[in-house]
């Protein structure tokens, strides 16, 4: 019985790959492949990690943990009954498995080695959680010293949506500012915080001001990043660099900050919050590029995923796309550029992991907020063929009087040397209690100068530079020397600080 279904499964999986529909936007050399999820199982991916034995573990919004034997293409249930598990971390040496779920970080132990966890050990549960649906706990990453990090969603506090006043706690500036209707608050301890849990299991509140911090990532230097979603106090979706003590913009979390203990957050002027605020490293323009970004992940595949080693990839739930980020350290802190990379996949992309072969596995859910891809859940891989160099903007870096754009291969000299082929928009955002922000002080111009390097892979453009702006560079007119079109025609560069 089992062998028959395995054979059938193999055939179906194979057929699915051959007939795979490819996204409209995808760089040359890249393809998308479906991975069959367990039959009949609602499989909203909340976290993915490879175990030392090469098997993929996936935790789901439905509270299950599944183990995937990649070669046999077989799924086995490892754990269930968790409460919306939105992150997993597996020790690359000891194979210990940790998941983050709404109420806690849990270590899942298979004591009798039968392939299923039987001991659900609470590693840390020191944050507050109520039965408010929006109090998600996201994760899970661990640094080189063994500290875990995760992020805690604010509570949905507006009684009109939450249908109860019991969560209406710490909504800030919902009155006295025109047209505000702040939805999110803090109905339990440390909602809106990023946290650290030490190897000994101690909870350390780490950074505040988060709203819907649906994904956290870490680079090889143990630097932490999280994405947030547009909403009250959040002008647009965004990527932030977490540093201990930072305030990322949403004030409800300050309720649990020692400096604000007992203070009326509504009596503090908005300007004061703005001064406290660390701007996002990268704005992800809402509606243009993404609406609800998930987990950031860094490409350390050593070139197996193409020419973007060291850059960051972020999926988006509603747009169902994958974006690519290159960070730029200016004035001691990160800002940077974001591109649309693959658009779009079958449903919302919120979790990512690279396989040993360099394939990017994309964990998906479309449930609850809708997703352009349309499917309710799924798992897909984005693979590079190992040889084709797509024509892409590889990077955009700030210079003293403009930007240095690098290409993955030589650009057409005539087109790339014409400043008129670099139309630029720039704008700012309001910092305010309202839900999202329109673009402010939108200006349009062309580059004043464009000089292409000898080898054709680098262009220096000059333009007027302003701080606290998003620069949108549109390179649709530029083709490669070999005639191929750009895979990504637009670069959105967040300019927080000018170069000295």
């Amino acid at each position, binding site marked *: 019985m089992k062998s028959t279904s395995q054979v059938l499964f193999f055939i179906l999986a194979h057929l699915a790959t051959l007939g795979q529909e490819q996204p409209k936007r995808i760089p040359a050399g890249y393809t998308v492949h479906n991975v069959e999820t367990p039959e009949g199982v609602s499989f909203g991916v909340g976290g993915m990690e490879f175990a030392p034995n090469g098997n993929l573990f996936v935790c789901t919004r439905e509270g*299950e943990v599944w183990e995937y034997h990649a070669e046999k293409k077989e799924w086995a249930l490892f754990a269930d*009954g968790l409460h919306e598990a939105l992150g997993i971390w597996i020790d690359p040496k000891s194979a210990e498995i940790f998941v983050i779920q709404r109420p*806690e970080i849990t270590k899942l132990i298979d004591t009798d080695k039968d392939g299923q966890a039987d001991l659900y050990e609470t590693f840390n549960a020191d944050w507050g959680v109520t039965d408010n649906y929006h109090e998600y706990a996201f994760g899970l990453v661990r640094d080189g010293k063994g500290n875990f990090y995760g992020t805690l969603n604010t509570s949905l506090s507006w009684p009109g949506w939450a249908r109860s006043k019991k969560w209406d706690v710490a909504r800030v500036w919902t009155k006295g500012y025109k047209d505000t209707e702040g939805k999110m608050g803090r109905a339990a301890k440390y909602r809106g915080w990023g946290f650290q849990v030490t190897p000994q299991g101690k909870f350390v509140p780490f950074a505040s001001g988060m709203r819907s911090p649906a994904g956290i990532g870490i680079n090889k230097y143990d630097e932490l990043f999280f994405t947030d979603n547009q909403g009250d106090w959040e002008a647009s979706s965004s990527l932030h660099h977490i540093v201990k003590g930072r305030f990322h913009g949403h004030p409800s979390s300050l309720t649990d900050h020692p400096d604000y203990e007992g203070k009326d957050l509504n009596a503090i002027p908005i300007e004061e919050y703005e001064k406290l605020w660390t701007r996002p490293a990268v704005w992800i323009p809402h509606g243009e590029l993404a609406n609800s970004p998930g987990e950031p992940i860094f490409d350390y595949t050593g070139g197996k995923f193409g020419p973007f080693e060291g850059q960051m990839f972020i999926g988006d739930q509603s747009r169902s796309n994958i974006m690519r980020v290159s960070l730029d350290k200016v004035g001691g802190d990160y800002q940077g550029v974001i591109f649309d990379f693959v658009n779009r996949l079958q449903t919302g992309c919120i979790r990512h992991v690279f396989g040993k072969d360099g394939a990017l596995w994309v964990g998906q859910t479309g449930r609850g907020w809708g997703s352009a891809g349309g499917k309710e859940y799924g798992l897909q891989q984005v693979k590079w063929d190992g040889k084709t160099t797509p024509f892409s903007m590889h990077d955009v870096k700030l210079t003293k009087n403009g930007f240095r754009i690098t290409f993955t291969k030589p650009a057409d000299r005539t087109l790339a040397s014409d400043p008129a082929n670099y139309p630029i928009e720039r704008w700012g955002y309001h910092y305010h209690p309202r839900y999202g922000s329109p673009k402010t002080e939108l200006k349009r111009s062309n580059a004043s100068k464009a000089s292409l390097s000898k080898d054709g892979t680098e262009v220096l453009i000059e333009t007027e530079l302003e701080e606290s702006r998003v620069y949108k560079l549109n390179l649709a007119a530029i083709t490669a020397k070999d005639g191929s079109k750009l895979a990504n025609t637009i670069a959105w560069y967040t300019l927080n600080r000018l170069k000295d």
Partner: protein
Amino acid sequence: MKPYLTSLLLFLLPSLHAKPDHEISLGTLHGQLRFSPEAFAVKPGSTVSLTLENSDEMIHNLILAKGDAKSVDLLAEAALKLGEKGMEMGFVPKDSSIIASIGLVQPGKKASVEFKVPGEKGDYPFVCTFPGHSLTMRGIMKVVDDPASADLSQVKAVSANTTPRNGVIEVGEEPRVIRVHVAGIDSGRSIAVGLPGGINYLFDAEKLMIRTGWTGAFINVTRDRRGRGGGLCAILGEKFGVGADEFPLRIGDPEKIPETRFLGYSRSGNPTFLYEVNGVRIEQTATGNPNTKGLTYGLRADSRKDLYFLVKPADGLTVASTAGKWDPENGYVRVPAKEASEFFVSIEQK
């Protein structure tokens, strides 16, 4: 003629018929929301006497219909929509697909229906449409030329999904442990436990206490799995009180509220909750009896001080312990330290 009346008349007038070609008897599995067996085979155009013997403690019905799993879903939905009239109509909706039906059968009772099998060969589903039962209480009538040699072992009327789309979590032979938010229980850290045999309880990992017990079907998690999730889920059975309005353990001093910490739970065998009380590690299990609506706590503690197990309010409850003594005046069982390594406290409705 209205189908449910047809079946009623057939039920009332069996003597008018000759002996049916097939006499089929179906049972119910106690506390598991399953028919047993879940398949039978009959000849096209034959006559059948079908009996439902309800050995479960819950009320069930049975509807046999033309169609597939999806049309059974629709029948169940139609039954649910009967609302107040449901009980009166035995949760049998009016629907042309129905071949035969048996109305509500009380626990321990049985009822029969006689009907003529359709002439067309194939699979005909049957289902219990009592609200909350239809996902798992399903079966298949196979209409074949040679019923005696039909292979019924492969019939899967109930999918083996761990997360069924319509959200009813079934307890089979193994206990289920699921974290959910439950309507009526104000906690962000609720853990629902369903034990085989139709006894269930809710452990609150924040207050470290059992908040309620219930008999019958386990839980419907639809509101946690639909849309944005995190919704308040429904306990499906009949709740009963367990005499806990606060964390029930005290160490050394019955008046002094201890420091506690949740450590997790084991799912080896009966689910065991692990926590610390003033540094003393406690292991707690629970078993129960659906008939007496009672829970028995199993507790293990390595304590140098006496333990107090509080039952409050104890009105209407019978309390007994295998160690120490129930003190109804103070509302606690005092367990001497040397007997605390393992003891059981049972709490039942009077």
